[in-house]
């Protein structure tokens, strides 16, 4: 009788679980699932901005198509044969690799500093958080002004120190445009990295350090043999999160270095085609490919880390 009651209770609770989840799931379906499906569908059509609903199925033409000019000549068209697209892919990957690497190193340094006991630590932590809180667009604008070729304070600083002899056109020159984008991104997101690594550092038990100190182990050895291995999991998660974020970068590039081949990323390429060039279907194809790349990385990450989704260990 009692067991019966409990199983009835479980049934009621399971039913209420789905009732509780329903509103959220419906919203996510309408706002994420459906639009994603439509984007993928558009990538196989000839949709244009004004005639979205008249889209007709055209197969994989937006991705790849061989056009025969007759007399044995022909050319490949489509996204997979588009040098501009591959340049954007290259830019995005290069940007993500460099920025995330530098952010990890700088974040680690900041985290190690914040993990020390010293006067004014709270204030330093608050100061470090500020770049994170500043809207990306505002950061981009602030740096655009600081990186200004004629009146920028950065050129002035570097010239005073003697690192450069002539002003650098940071955002305008193709050689430095990507560096400018990276500078802004690194400045803005290092705090996030530092906080995640700091959380990992604070979980390292203090007696481990005590023991090492008693044994007279050098500081660098303690860092390499104790600290680093223990914070590795937290650091990896931070790196993956940041990488996924970096791969979809849009704002900084759009504001800081608009219309430059040197910095065009996948997101910028996709949006440009969708809304500025009236190649809605083509832009959808770019969005779809980008989604596939990021989805693949996410799945690999989730499988590799065997995440504790059910919360069994907590």
């Amino acid at each position, binding site marked *: 009788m009692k067991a019966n009651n409990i199983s009835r*209770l479980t049934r009621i609770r399971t039913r*209420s679980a*789905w009732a*509780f*989840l329903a*509103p*959220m799931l419906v*919203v*996510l379906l*309408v*706002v*994420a699932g*459906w*639009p*994603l499906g*439509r*984007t993928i569908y558009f990538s196989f059509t000839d949709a244009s901005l004004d005639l979205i*609903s008249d889209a007709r199925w055209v197969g994989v033409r937006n991705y790849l198509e061989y056009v025969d000019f007759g007399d044995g000549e022909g050319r490949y068209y489509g996204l997979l044969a588009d040098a501009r697209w591959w340049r954007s892919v290259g830019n995005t990957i290069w940007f993500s690799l460099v920025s995330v690497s530098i952010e990890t190193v700088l974040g680690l340094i*900041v985290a190690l*500093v914040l993990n020390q006991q010293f006067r004014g630590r*709270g204030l330093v932590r*608050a*100061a*470090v*958080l*500020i*770049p*994170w*809180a*500043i*809207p990306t*667009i*505002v*950061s981009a*604008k*602030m*740096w655009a*002004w600081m990186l200004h070729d*004629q*009146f920028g304070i950065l050129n002035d600083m570097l010239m005073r120190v003697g690192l450069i002899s002539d002003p650098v056109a940071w955002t305008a020159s193709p050689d430095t445009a990507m560096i400018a984008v990276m500078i802004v991104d690194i*400045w803005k997101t290092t705090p*996030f990295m530092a*906080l*995640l690594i700091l*959380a*990992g550092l604070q979980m390292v038990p203090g007696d481990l350090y005590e023991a090492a100190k008693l044994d007279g182990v050098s500081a660098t050895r303690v860092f390499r043999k104790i600290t680093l291995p223990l914070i590795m999991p*937290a650091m990896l*998660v931070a790196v993956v999160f940041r990488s996924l974020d970096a*791969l979809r970068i*849009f*704002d900084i590039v*759009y504001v800081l270095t608009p219309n430059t081949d040197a910095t065009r990323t996948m*997101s910028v390429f*996709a*949006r440009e085609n969708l809304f500025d060039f009236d190649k809605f279907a083509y832009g959808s194809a770019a*969005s779809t490919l*980008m989604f596939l790349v*990021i989805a693949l990385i996410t799945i690999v990450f*989730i499988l590799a880390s065997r995440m504790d989704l059910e*919360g069994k260990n907590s």
Partner: protein
Amino acid sequence: MKLDILKRLGFYALVTIIVLQALFPFYYAILTSLEDGQALFEINYLPEALNFINYQSMLSGGVFGKQILNSVFVASVVVIISLTLAVTAAYALSRIRFRGRGLLLLTILSVSMFPQIAVLAGLFEVIRWLGLFNSLWALVFSYMIFTLPFTVWVLTTFMRNLPIEIEEAAIMDGASSLTIIRRVFLPLMWPAMVTTGLLAFIHAWNEFLFALTFLSTDGQRTVPVAIAMISGRSEFEIPWGNIMAASVIVTLPLVALVLIFQRKIVSGLTAGAVKG
């Protein structure tokens, strides 16, 4: 002994560098925003002018004020809706065992990692179809894609860590799940809700891509797009003073929030990511 002093000096030098690099761009934006005319183009490291003309010109037109209100409206409504939807969902995901729970959490997590651009084309169609183009509700609607998974995820982690005993008595008394959420969990969840709400607010306040795409007139824009759109007649007439004044205006509230809720923000950020 000497080495010790050197070490301490080195450490504090590092601390100084960290603080300076974090604060300098914002400091310089404030400094620039207080300059006008020729003074703008003379590089100085310390404030030399205290001229509020840029602030006046930004705020007097009325458009920028409207845009700030737009941002406040969108971010607040987004926070309220996503918290409401997330509390019940998080309860189900953390306190009730049912089949498919792990998969569901996985799906929610992957949505939060979605590249926004992947849904842009489809969302554009939905928003036009709903007649929401150039309406603030278009943003409220589309921002759910990042605030909802995030709030659900963080609140689920938080609720999961509450002891089972707290609801046992209520279940035995035959209280409905909704009552349990309202009476037992809500009072305990305020800290977590403030944290996630704050982070969701900042996300929504800063969002750019959707706001750029789904709004088309000046009066409807939110502040990030408004700032990105401030331009002069030519490249040589970009009103840097105005841009910096606008930047300072929209950033100051955020900086204040960060300073006040520092601890909460740090714990919310790390709960959202480390556990994920």
